Structure formats: C-alpha cells, structure tokens
C-alpha cells in the first residue's frame, strides 16, 4: 500500500458544520444549543440517579461527582495527575509532530524513500497502539518516556500523511515560477512550500492534538505511577466511580482545550483565507 493511495484529506473537523450562512440569531443559537444539550445531559443524569435504577457505585449522582471534584482539587491530587498527563501529552505531541514533519517532507520529495518506508509505516499504523504499548513499557520503562513514545507514535501517522499530502499538493506552476526567479531551495521551502502546505499541516495538527491525549492515557493505562490514566485505573479498582468520572471529564476538558488552541492557532495563521474571499 502506497501512502498516496490514501484519501486526499484524511482529516475531519471535530465540530459539525451547520448548514447555511450565519444569521445573527443562528450565531447566537450556535453558542446556546451546545450549552443546552450539555444541560439536558446533566438533567438526564440527575433523573436517572434520582430514580435509583442503579446503585451509586455504578452511576453516582452529579452532586457526588462535583463533591469528589472539589475534594481532589483541594488536596492537589487532581492537579498532580493532570499535570503529569499534560506533560506527557505535550511532549508526545511535539516529538510526534516534529518527526512526522521531517520524515513527511523527505517522503514527499523522494519516491524511493516512500517505497522503502511505506510498508513499515502502514504496518505500524494498522496495529493498534494499545496492543504494542506493553512492549514500549518493557523497552522504555513505566515513566514519562514510554508515555511520550506512545503519544508520539499515535500522533505520527496522521501528521505524516498530512505533511506528504501538503507538500505534494504545492502547485507545480508555482514551483516553476520560483525556479524562473532563480529561487534557492531554502527560498522555495520558506516562501512556497511551508505557506502552501500550511492549511493541510494545521488540520493535521488539530487531529494530532486530540490524539496525543489518547496516546498518553494509553501509556498510563498500561503502566504508570501517576497521571489521569493511572488515576482512573486506581479509582476503578477501589470502586470510586465519582473519581473515575472526574478524571475522565478532566481528560475531556484537556483534549478540548488542546483542540481549541490548535484551532485558534489555525485561524490566526490562515487569516488570509477569511480576508481573501
């Protein structure tokens, strides 16, 4: 399987586009409706616990979860585990993205390299990370390193594909134009390839930002002594369901914030798109 046999745009947005042009009311409702659906979810949850259909250790009430959240925030445990996970997420993201950018650029430029490497890369991608995560623990220990490696591996493939697609998608007429100006390789890279590939690279970064969280948690699930993944495992073994939920929600917030940061960055870097049409 060749890398370029894969779909042109392997990325998809995490938010669903609303149809039609943004109308003032729609813009308002666009903000309001997500809050409303969150509220409904909470309400449903509250109703289920009030009906006492399930014991509290299976579905604790929202109040119990909130109480637990206040407790673990107060004693510093949540911050300890969240910051441990966040450090692993950010380092995994950085390592994975940088490696994918470098290798992706090389592959985009060299058909030979693509032919040599794509079987390995595709095999690596086809194997679930959770399956070989224990191997990584054996090789890199149960500390930060193996979490970074897991995160980097999970981030690597989509970012690599986006890099290859982005660099190969640089219009050949623009390449010819730069050649006709006697541009150096470096000038072609900086003035053409990077900005032309930027939209695809940034959508890769958005996907990677959320994947990095999954990678770190997988690492923590398999073996770790700190982090939100570790906390979830620990709480589950103690039937502390509210704590499990607190840790999971913290991960949700973390992933959403990372995605939001990447989106913000994208909007800034691609401001020309909004002004151009």
């Amino acid at each position, binding site marked *: 399987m060749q890398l370029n046999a894969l779909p042109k745009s392997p990325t998809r947005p995490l938010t669903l586009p609303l149809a039609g042009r943004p109308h003032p009311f729609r813009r308002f409702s666009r903000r309001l409706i997500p809050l409303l659906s969150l509220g409904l979810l909470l309400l449903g949850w509250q109703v289920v616990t009030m009906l006492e259909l399930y014991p509290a250790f299976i579905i604790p009430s929202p109040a119990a979860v909130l109480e637990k959240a206040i407790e673990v925030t107060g004693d510093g445990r949540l911050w300890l585990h969240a910051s441990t996970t966040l450090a692993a997420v950010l380092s995994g993201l950085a390592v994975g993205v940088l490696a994918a950018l470098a290798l992706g650029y090389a592959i985009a430029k060299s058909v030979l390299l693509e032919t040599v490497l794509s079987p390995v890369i595709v095999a690596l991608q086809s194997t679930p990370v959770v399956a070989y995560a224990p191997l990584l623990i054996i090789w890199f220990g149960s500390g930060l390193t193996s979490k970074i490696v897991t995160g980097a591996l999970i981030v690597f493939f989509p970012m690599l594909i986006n890099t290859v697609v982005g660099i190969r998608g640089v219009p050949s007429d*623009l390449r*010819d134009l*730069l050649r*006709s*100006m*006697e541009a150096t390789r470096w000038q072609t890279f900086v*003035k053409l390839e990077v*900005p032309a590939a930027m939209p695809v690279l940034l959508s890769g970064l958005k996907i990677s930002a959320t994947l990095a969280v999954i990678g770190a948690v997988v690492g923590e699930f398999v073996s770790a002594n700190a982090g939100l993944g570790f906390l979830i495992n620990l709480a589950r073994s103690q039937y502390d369901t509210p704590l499990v939920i607190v840790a999971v929600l913290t991960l949700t917030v973390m992933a959403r914030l990372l995605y939001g940061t990447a989106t913000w960055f994208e909007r800034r870097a691609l401001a*020309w798109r909004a002004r*151009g049409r």
Partner: protein
Amino acid sequence: MSARITASELAAAYQTPDGDTLPALGPVSFHVEAGSFVCLLGPSGCGKSTLIRLLAGLQRPSRGQALLDNHVIMQPSRRVGLMFQDANLMPWRTVLDNLTLPLEVAGVPKDERLAAARALLPALGLADFEAAYPGALSGGMAQRVALGRVLIQKPDALLLDEPFGALDAMTRERISLDLMDMWERQRQTVLMVTHDIHEAALLADRVLVFSRRPGRIAADIRVTLPRPRRLEDTYGAAFGQIAGQVRAAISRT
C-alpha cells in the same frame, strides 16, 4: 535592455509510460529579434507550451538548443520573465507582496522593492488593491498582478503562455492593450502564445504559425502595421488583410 531569443533545431519528446518516445515539438529553428513582439499560434497540443518551457530553461530539449543572446539556456534565468494562463498568485500574500516576490527572491532591500511595486500599481490599474488578497480579485485583476510580477524584475525577455486565455473578451482586449503600451515603453523581447488571431495581429511584429504535433513552423507572417497601434486600427483594411493571412495559414495546418 532586451535579449535575442534563438531556437536552433530545437526539439522535445516525452516518454510514455510504455517506454515509447512521443515527439512533442519540432525540430524548429527561428530567431526572435531583440525588442520585437512575436506571437505564436497553432492547434492545441502542438507543443507551444513545451517550447515556452524549453526557452524558460524549465525543461531540457531532446535535441538542439535554445539560446538567449548567444548563451545556451541551461536553467531558468531572472533575465526571462514567465507568465502562464493561470495567474499563479500566492493566495497567502497580498497584491503588494505578490508583486514584490521576484525582488524578494533576488535579495532586493525591502524599501526598494516596496517602492518598485507601488510605482507599478497605477499602470496596472491596481492602485487601490495593494492590500487585497488574491482570493478577492477578479480573473482580470489577478492576471494584472501576474503581469506586474514579471515586469518588476525588469526582464530582457518575456515568455507569455496564453496569459489572457482564461479572461472574457472585453477584459482580455483591455489588458492586451495595456501590455502593448508597457511594451512600447520598455521594448523587452516578447514571445507570446495565443489562440486569438485578432490579439496576435494587433500586438505582434511577427506571427509564427505552428503545425500539428510535433509542432513545426508552418508560416512566418510579418505584421507591418505602423506603431503605436490603437484598437481602432483593427477595423481597417490593412489589419483585416493580416488577420486573413494568419487565418489562412492556420487553416492549412
């Protein structure tokens, strides 16, 4: 300054996936005198664009050579400006930054290149658009930016590959007249591929008509109309005769 372009037994061929060689152009031999305006007409697929690529140094010939003055063209040169049917602007750069790109690549200091670009804007009819992004421009305006971008590097020769081919008739006529005005002041050597007999007869000193693939020169027609030319000249008998000659040459290919 302007440069003389020479094609000497110039030919190009492509490799098909089966390993066959497909002749695309020539061999052709011709001179384009320094400072003259030559238009190239021919059926589609006759190798006109290939010829432009060879002369631009973007592609190597399979036979013969292309010369700029007396130097064999081995690679692209800043002395030669290139323009395609598509404006090929960088959508992430404003009009002004697109115009200055060749100077930026050549290492011209920022204030100099901005001054040069701002000096060009009025003649291009883009005075109010320096901060606009290409996505906001019409096809005609985008092509004007592309024209400005080749002119700013003060090339000795211009190679234009159907530069106005994608524009509507009215826009096309106005922009070709503007090109003619600018050329009459600077007199770079121009080799322009076109599909439009009217455009060729109005702009050119000479019209080269190419045969079907592999393209060879089927006719070499001198346009003896006096300069400066105006649009009204195209309604005269002399113009009609030239256009008819070109038309007849194309019919014979």
